[in-house]
């Protein structure tokens, strides 16, 4: 692989993202470095399985019509994925600078994309506003599929929706009701009658884990 320029974009929770110039293209390189403070065997299993999972899922959900960066190459032993770089902004940051109308429409889209995945029994696993990127044309792309899973049950989909709601609560508290409402509209638009079971499970999950 001939990489001419490599520049650190951000240090994520479990990865480092680099912007690289490759054959005249600007790409993103996601690398999962080792965590010396975690047991070596656990660390290796996680880095390997998540790299492989992310790579497969990015590609698979794309065929369903969910915009994701195209994967160019993967190096499992080095725990890295080379994919399209989406020029834009994290949805999380955009919420702070956009009009309510724009936020509402982006949330609607976010809900639709999750709906599309759930209808095919796929969960994202970490559906926060950090993991959606909005490009210059206001198109939303989903990223960070290391925790995604196939053959998802109602419980797993419920967890996904619970996580989404909590992301709004903790990070976009002032707008949480509006954002949740439009997201749910988009979600229900796609999943129709299947939505109810998932959303009531999400409510139930929210109540668990509390003191009992």
């Amino acid at each position, binding site marked *: 692989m001939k990489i001419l320029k490599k520049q650190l974009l951000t240090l994520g929770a479990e990865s480092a993202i680099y912007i690289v110039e490759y054959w005249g293209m600007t790409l993103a390189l996601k690398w999962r470095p080792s965590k010396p403070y975690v047991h070596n065997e656990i660390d290796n299993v996680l880095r390997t399985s998540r790299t492989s999972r992310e790579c497969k899922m990015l590609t698979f959900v794309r065929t369903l019509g969910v915009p994701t960066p195209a994967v160019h190459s993967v190096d499992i032993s080095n725990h890295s994925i080379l994919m399209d770089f989406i020029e834009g902004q994290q949805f999380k940051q955009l919420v702070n600078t956009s009009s309510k109308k724009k936020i509402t429409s982006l949330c609607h889209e976010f809900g639709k994309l999750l709906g599309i995945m759930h209808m095919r029994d796929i969960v994202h696993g970490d559906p926060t506003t950090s993991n959606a990127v909005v490009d210059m044309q206001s198109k939303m792309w989903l990223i960070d599929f290391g925790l995604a899973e196939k053959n998802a049950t109602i419980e797993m989909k419920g967890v996904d929706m619970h996580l989404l709601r909590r992301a709004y609560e903790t*990070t976009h508290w002032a707008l949480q009701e509006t954002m949740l409402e439009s997201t749910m509209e988009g979600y229900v638009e796609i999943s129709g009658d299947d939505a109810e079971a998932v959303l009531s499970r999400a409510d139930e999950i929210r109540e668990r884990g509390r003191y009992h």
Partner: protein
Amino acid sequence: MSLLCLGLEGTAHSFGAGVVSSKGEVLSNIWHMLSPVEGGIHPREASRHHSDMGPGIIKRSLEDAGVSHSDIQLVAFSRGPGLGPCLRTTATMARTLAQKLAVPLVGVNHCVAHIEIGCLESGFEDPVTIYVSGGNTQVIAFAGGRFRTFGETLDMALGNMLDVFGRTVGMRFPAGPSIEHAAAEGVDYHQLPYSVKGMDLSYSGMLTAAKKLHLEGVPVADICFSIQETAFGMLAEVAERAVAHTKKNEILLTGGVARNNRLTEILKGVAERHGARFHRVSPPLAGDQGAMIAWTGILQHQAGDELPLSSSHVMPKWRTDEQDILWR
């Protein structure tokens, strides 16, 4: 002039009373934990423990602080979340004292108190807090006027998982220290279900798998070692996700399980990677005790909060993010 607050804690298995001054001096902090010979904690039994031990603990706490009843200018109590019967017993003692001494009463959120006493001790201003105990496993941070739970367990608390496993291999409650001890002798790592969902996690699957290893005859030390590495690794991951997400640069570890040295070591590693400062709350202030309630009561009272006796009902399901934090 400094104000003295008596704080009563009694949300679960422990009853505690502490006296703290408005300058942040912990003058006394006495508690007693119910430790049944076998089995877990029963709410009624725990509340009886609190009503039996409570008055004596309060008396000792005042003596230890070198103050008399009449020096107390504020009474604070753990209003929730917690076990209903325990909360009610504690609240009754607090109301009676406040009335007898004719001083204001303040109802404190137990989880918020764990964070505030940790901030007092560490000098941290705005940490991501990892709160792990027998009843709670939460990743909390301040945002938009409230303490918000960024991540938590979807089923059982970390401490509870350790206690339940400990019980199946014959360890006494609370089993955390025995498990840490046994884990130090462990050599072989056995894979256990690692279950992280975003910033949430789940421990019930690994508990079932660990019990199965025990039935299969795997040495207890190895299982304990594997449990610690897996359970704490999961916690490190959600902590890391919260730090990356909030971009805060302090990590506070508190709650009963904060006593564990391996957990501390792992979270120190997380802090280092993200350039954050780390503090583990010292054992006397990390568990459930009254000083944290007293200190938070002072902060709350100074921000103008006071609870009329008539509406001082307990709140067993009081969520951390339901309270406006007026003092921050």
